């Protein structure tokens, strides 16, 4: 029997599936079909650096989850994907994010078109104070679609895609604010789907929902990943382990470990990852 014994946390074994990218010592999987390539990304709010030299590939039509303690930079990183951080003053960014090979940080990128392709769902559902129908139709209206028949089709497709159609089809003209929290969150997903994006970013989409509504969103995510690439930020580790295909652990703005979800939760290679997911932090 020939077995090399080495302590679990040295991060030495199974080196073969660690790609050579990145200058840090983070653990990474090999991503075959990368939709995003993050290349040495650093981010500052004024003088305070929120992200440190992050390099990783995000696979197409999979669910990638970011986990990490509060303030680790996971939401900041998520907001980089559709340049939502542009809305904040005095931020600085270095490195690059490529989407289908092209930089999205380039000043020439048309941010509205980018955000059309990369939609976002937030922690707190934020439907417009309008009818259910108008919430879903809104995005397409501002992108120039006017015909009622087209809009009807978009609304139905969006609501079906978000698994909400059957619950609301008879009351499309009622206010969206009358929906339950879970329904509102699915309406926000329908709204994101209406403009036919490629990617959906989800920032703590279930943290305000009860377990049943959470289960519905999680089920929906499995359906959505057949057609979309999903990136989710969550501080609920069980949720990350349930829904995602890949999980990245961030700590103090650094990528510590990025792996197939089952690998990360069964045999993480870094001590910090192990300590975080087993609740030994602090």
């Amino acid at each position, binding site marked *: 029997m020939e077995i090399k014994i080495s302590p679990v946390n040295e991060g030495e074994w199974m080196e073969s599936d660690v790609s050579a990218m990145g200058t840090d010592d983070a653990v990474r999987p090999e991503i075959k079909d990368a939709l995003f390539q993050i290349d040495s990304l650093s981010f500052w709010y004024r003088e305070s650096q929120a992200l440190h030299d992050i390099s990783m590939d995000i696979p197409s039509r999979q669910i990638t989850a970011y986990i990490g303690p509060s303030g680790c930079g996971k939401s900041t990183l998520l907001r980089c994907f559709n340049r939502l951080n542009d809305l904040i003053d005095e931020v600085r960014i270095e490195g690059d994010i490529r989407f289908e090979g092209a930089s999205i940080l380039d000043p020439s990128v048309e941010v509205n078109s980018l955000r059309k392709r990369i939609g976002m769902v937030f922690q707190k559902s934020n439907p417009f104070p309008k009818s259910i129908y108008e919430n879903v139709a809104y995005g397409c209206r501002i992108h120039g679609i006017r015909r009622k028949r087209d809009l009807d089709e978009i609304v139905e497709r969006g609501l079906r895609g978000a698994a909400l159609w059957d619950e609301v089809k008879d009351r499309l003209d009622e206010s969206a604010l009358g929906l339950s929290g879970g329904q509102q969150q699915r309406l926000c997903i329908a709204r994101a789907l209406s403009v036919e994006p490629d990617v959906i970013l989800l920032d703590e989409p279930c943290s305000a929902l009860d377990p049943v509504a959470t289960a519905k969103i999680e089920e929906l995510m499995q359906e959505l990943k057949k057609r979309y690439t999903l990136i989710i930020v969550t501080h609920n580790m069980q949720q990350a382990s349930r829904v995602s295909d890949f999980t990245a652990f961030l700590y103090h703005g650094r990528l510590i470990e990025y792996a197939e979800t089952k690998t990360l939760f069964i045999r993480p290679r870094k001590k910090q990852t192990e300590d975080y*997911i087993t609740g030994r932090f602090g």
Partner: protein
Amino acid sequence: MERTLDRDLDEIRQSLLRMGGLVEAMLDQAEKSLMERDADLAKHVIKSDPEVDRIEMDLDEMCYSVLARYQPAAVDLRFVAAVIKINNDLERVGDSAVNIAQAVLALSEEPPLKPYIDLPRLFEIVRGMVRDSLDSLVRQKPSQALDVCDRDDQVDGLYKQIFRELLTYMIEDPKVVTRALHLLLISRNLERVADHATNIAEDVIYYVEGRDVRHSAK
């Protein structure tokens, strides 16, 4: 940082070790009852088994409870998964000790077939394997566990040797067949105990390192 989970895991560890201690003692006593033709001691081994069975069920219950309540991950998950399997192996070791004790009872009614030479050696190796597999769990020492796995080949060799020897006895004299078969049964049970100890050692390696060394991986 001390976690609530740690208390439960510690309780599981203690129960598993208590069970380990019990089955080790049963093996010891089974050997002694054979060598000293002590029927009372053999009966004592048989009477110990319900206690092992009880701990087995309690341990499973504790493990399932931890899984349901904490959804452990990483090393915690690997530990609980390993304990569920080790628990089963230890219970089977207890059963083997009972089988041996029953054979000893049958043998004690007839004169000894031969002086036992290889059997005590087999007992010694096998008991060492059980002890070291549990020790490697406590110390979280995969090298010690690997060493247990390596010893399994010695056991298999010794078992084959005993098998051949008993076979010649039986061929030469049909009157000894019953006694020879009981001795063979004892050896066979010891060989199985060694397999269980090897399983335990493999589970320890998985628990500590997250590597599966069973089957082809060896």
